[in-house]
């Protein structure tokens, strides 16, 4: 199993390299060094000032040399500064993760419990009209774009009825709950439909297996078969799906955060896109990819740990 892990990590290295190459190329294609200098220094800067700026950053060197420096910067976590706010990007990303998680973690946990519960219930009543109706409801939940959830709840629950603040965020105490309530619930809703259907399919696959027949033959009750036998087997697949979600939790939902004014990583990115803040976008790509790769490896690890057939071989 240790070998397996080492191989997985080694395999991730060329992928990370590929991502870095893509990021680097995109960065250079999107804007020429001149355009970048003009953007940062302002329209009034002279040609000489721009040339100096370009030279200081090594942007006039040949591409391969730039690339090596780029990798070096990334390796030492030197991401540069924002073109808009001038703040160090390390700080920006570090600060941004908190609010994102305040929304996504509660939403995710609630959503997980709800979708697993719903899926198990649907398997309990499988093939009945209730099952079909719940499936269509799940599909309906999936078919509504995020923005619509946000816009409508903001318009009605927040602005019109004033139950919750429509905008803003602050840490600490009960006040935070008011701010995260709507966004977290919406985050749960947008994933609920998809997850419930997926888990239902997983559990349905399990209930057709031979060991379930054996359990019934032993006299195990219907609910115990579902809650223990089927659930534990399905959990293996589900755990891997959950672990794969972790990067998305940290990166936050772009739409929810920007529409609710939550200062999380998603919002950081949206603002960067809208203002053309290239370093932020590029760093997001790199950090996002790093997180995804980590999650791929973690997924494999968890899968190996959870399934005794793999753990003990």
């Amino acid at each position, binding site marked *: 199993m240790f070998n397996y892990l080492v191989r997985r990590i080694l395999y991730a290295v060329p992928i990370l390299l590929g991502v870095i190459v893509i990021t680097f190329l995109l960065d250079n294609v999107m804007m020429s060094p001149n355009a970048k200098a003009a953007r940062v220094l302002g329209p009034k800067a002279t040609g000489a000032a721009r040339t100096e700026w370009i030279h200081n950053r090594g942007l006039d060197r040949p591409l391969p040399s730039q690339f090596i420096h780029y990798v070096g910067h990334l390796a030492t976590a030197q991401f540069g500064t924002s073109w808009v706010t001038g703040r160090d990007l390390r700080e920006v990303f570090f600060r941004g993760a908190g609010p994102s998680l305040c929304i996504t973690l509660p939403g995710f946990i609630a959503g997980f419990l709800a979708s697993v519960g719903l899926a198990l219930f649907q398997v309990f009543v499988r093939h009945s009209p209730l099952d079909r109706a719940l499936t269509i409801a799940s599909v309906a939940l999936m078919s509504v774009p995020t923005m619509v959830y946000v816009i409508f709840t903001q318009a009605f629950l927040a602005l019109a009825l004033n139950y919750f603040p429509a905008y803003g965020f602050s840490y600490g105490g009960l006040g935070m709950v008011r701010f995260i309530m709507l966004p977290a619930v919406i985050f749960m809703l947008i994933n609920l439909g998809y997850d419930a259907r997926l888990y239902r399919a997983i559990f349905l696959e399990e209930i057709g297996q031979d060991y379930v027949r054996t359990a019934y*033959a032993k006299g195990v009750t219907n609910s115990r078969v579902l809650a223990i036998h089927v659930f*534990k087997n399905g959990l293996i697949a589900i755990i891997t799906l959950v672990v794969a979600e972790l990067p998305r939790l940290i990166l936050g939902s772009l739409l929810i955060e920007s529409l609710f004014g939550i200062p999380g990583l998603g919002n950081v990115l949206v603002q960067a896109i809208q203002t053309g803040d290239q370093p932020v976008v590029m760093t997001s790509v790199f950090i996002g990819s790093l997180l995804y790769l980590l999650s791929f490896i973690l997924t494999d690890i968890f899968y190996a740990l959870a399934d*005794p057939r793999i753990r003990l*071989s």
Partner: protein
Amino acid sequence: MPDQSFLEIKNLAIDFATEGGVVEAVKGISFSMARGETLAIVGESGSGKSVTGLALTRLLPEPPAIYKSGEILLDGQDVLKMPANDLRKIRGARIAYIFQEPSTSLNPVFTIRNQIAEAIKLHRPEVRDLDAEVIQYLDLVGIVDPAKRLHDYPHQLSGGMQQRVMIAMALSCQPELLVADEPTTALDVTIQKQIIDQLRELKERVQMAIILITHNFGIIGGIADRVAVMFRGKIVEYGETHTVLSNPQHPYTKALIECIPQPGQKRRRLATIDHEALEAAV
């Protein structure tokens, strides 16, 4: 005449609702068993023998199975009319099962100790030391070093051992009837013999009735008291094993027995069965 009223099947008919229409899997069969007796139900795939075995505790998924008519009387009580709670009390405690594929019939994520203990906890809650009880049954079915095996997972055992674990699990609730649905089909020939020998030994020690469902006439010789031959949902021959084997009456039984290759027989074509002609004869 030994008391035949332990298990009585009367005119059992079972249909399956499939996409292509309704399939009559079992077309009205009757037989009975005494306590401690061993009955072999022999037939090809599709003859309805497994369906019959599973029907004894309503293990068939409904839909698509439909119990059209008939009775399954266990000590006079009709299983088909029992409420769900009573049915669950019979399962495992009075009638237990072992199945064809032991590798998939055991739950892959639970240890064998937990799976057997689950059965014991369900039906014999008075047992205090579960580990000791599980070890005792593992030993009974011939598993070497059972204490070491307690916390193994099914995939860590060989096919033959997995089947023994299934038998141990079935026996742990001390059932009156063990239904063995093709217990050896998925195993190597040498292991097959071991399993059948094990069953025979258990039968003598534990005084348990056994229904042995198989397509292989060759394995029933030393173990079955009586045999029922099934063909396309009907019982075509029914009687004491040695009688049926030595003097089969029905053409299908004759054809089946002829199909068993005899060691030392001169080189000639293996016998085959003409189903359509037999269908007409049934």
